């Protein structure tokens, strides 16, 4: 190694040129960091190759009929995941409707001076702890608390408003509504947290200007704060949707695992993730192809939703600057 200029050892300074060993160590460590980054990329590639590659035979065999098919019957080698896709989307959108409303309300509540800071911190902690509870515990809670709790309401709705497609069938137990309710609770923290960021990013002077024009507290919130933070809040909703689509355990425990397409909130349904959880442990090679295909579909749906969500977030952050 040729040195560009000579450095005299300076005994009266802590500043020293690196020794040869230190340079080797430096190079080695940077190599390790590179390796770490490569491993991340490799992981993504491996995921796509393992799942995508193993889905190829299934794709060749069943083609697009797999996505449009409504029958899942391994005996007759008939596989269709449309009911599961429908259940995934329907339960997630329902959850988004409920969780989105409460999440955004919560974000407004926590950022728009409703509470003294200490109390706001308490509520913020409650919401964050909601996110920490494992999905399987929510499933257990759903079976023993949510289903019995909503049964009277569901029966009443079915009896009085049974002509609406949403209440067409009576609630047996597991079904879309309990699943969507629990799912809503699970995505609420994500939506609340990201929406809070969006609302906090609105410059203070914007709000002050609204008050200055004589707006009431809520006029300022609804007509000034929300529209200004709209992109960020929309991003929060999309990210919440992404989380709902991939959720597995609570759904597998609450949704009823019945392959059918129905608008009724009380009818049992199926989701892609629950389908995988229940069928994978017992799948033979023929079924593994099919399940890998279903995994791929799930991966693509969540990927698209998450990409849309993150790009909206990116836009809103750039907009804020």
């Amino acid at each position, binding site marked *: 190694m040729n040195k560009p200029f000579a450095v005299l050892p300076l005994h009266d300074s802590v500043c020293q040129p690196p020794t040869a060993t230190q340079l080797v160590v430096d190079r080695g460590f940077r190599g*390790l960091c*590179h390796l770490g980054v490569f491993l991340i990329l490799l992981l993504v590639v491996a995921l796509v190759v393992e799942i995508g590659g193993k889905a190829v035979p299934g794709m060749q065999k069943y083609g697009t009929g797999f996505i449009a098919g409504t029958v899942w019957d391994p005996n007759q080698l008939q596989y269709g995941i449309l009911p599961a896709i429908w259940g995934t989307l329907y339960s997630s959108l329902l959850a988004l409707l409920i969780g989105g409303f409460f999440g955004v309300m919560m974000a407004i509540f926590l950022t728009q001076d409703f509470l003294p800071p200490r109390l706001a911190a308490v509520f913020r902690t409650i919401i964050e702890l909601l996110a920490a*509870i494992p999905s*399987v*515990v929510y*499933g257990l809670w759903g079976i023993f608390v949510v289903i019995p709790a909503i049964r009277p309401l569901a029966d009443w709705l079915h009896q009085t408003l049974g002509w609406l497609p949403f209440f067409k069938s009576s609630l047996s137990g597991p079904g879309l509504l309990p699943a969507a309710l629990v799912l809503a609770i699970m995505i609420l923290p994500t939506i609340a947290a990201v929406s809070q960021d969006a609302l906090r990013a609105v410059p203070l002077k914007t709000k002050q200007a609204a008050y200055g024009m004589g707006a009431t507290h809520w006029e300022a919130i609804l007509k000034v704060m929300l529209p200004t933070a709209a992109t960020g809040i929309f991003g929060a909703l999309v990210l919440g949707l992404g989380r709902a689509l991939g959720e597995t355990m609570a759904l597998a425990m609450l949704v009823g695992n019945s392959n059918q397409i129905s608008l009724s909130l009380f009818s049992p349904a199926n989701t892609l993730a629950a389908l995988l959880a229940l069928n994978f442990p017992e799948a033979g090679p023929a079924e593994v192809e099919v399940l890998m295909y279903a*995994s791929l579909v799930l991966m693509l749906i969540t990927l698209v939703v*998450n990409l849309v969500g993150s790009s909206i977030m990116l836009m809103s952050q750039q907009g804020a600057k």
Partner: protein
Amino acid sequence: MRNLSVSDQPAPSLQRTLAGRSLRSALLSGLAWACALIASVPLFSVLYMLITRGGSRLSWEVLSELPPAGFEMGGGFGNALVGTFVMVGIAALIAIPVGILAGIFLAVLGPGSKLATMARFAAKTLTGLPSILAGVFAYALVVLTTGSYSAPAGGVALAVLMVPIVVLTAEEALKMVPKVMKDAAYGMGCTRTQVIWKIVLPTGMPAVLTGVMLAVARAAGETAPLLFTALFSNYWLYQDGSLELMGPTASLAVLIYNFSGMPFDNQIELAWAASLVLVMIVLVINIVSRIIGRPRF
């Protein structure tokens, strides 16, 4: 002023709207309060159920014994507790070094490089990966190759979920280290490795640890990736002098799932008790990570 002088009538309409507007505002505030309270109900309901139904069953016996067969009374989930620790440990051994190294690269070594952009994108994509797909991946990669359900297979599946959290939080944490501190060290002739080890890591460590602990907490509660990688076992990993890492391994999360679907009251009580233990583990990790990661200055 002109208005005042001209108006021989009072302006009731304006007052009424103002009153109406205030009323609407008050109503909406009430609604916001109601929403906040309703949103807090689930947490308290879950905690209430865990404490009343799980807490009544919690005892040393439950923490130290093996799961009961279908009809038996008593029993516990000692092996599942151990299994959860072992698999989260394996996952942490894989995910933390990889995650922190990659985080260092993203924050310090090449933040603007193309590689970093790609890796950042990859990590963000991975955070959105449904956890069941991590299980599918580990099943294909580990279970089918080794020919057995095992603790390492479960560990790999959990690691896939931990890595992106560690990477992204480590990057955020290390980026926060003030540039002047690094510049001072470079100026003294430090190599980049020395800057990282002596300046960046010590300064950013609390925040990195927060991310690591959040990742651990998430992994401890995951069920879906373990269903068909670690499966479940009714026995201890380590029994009478032999360690069976390469066999099916119990975990708290899978035990809760299995027992919640059983018709026997004993098992359902155990599912609640196991949930209480699992939630306590997760919450303790969360709270500790908050204390560690609290901004100090």
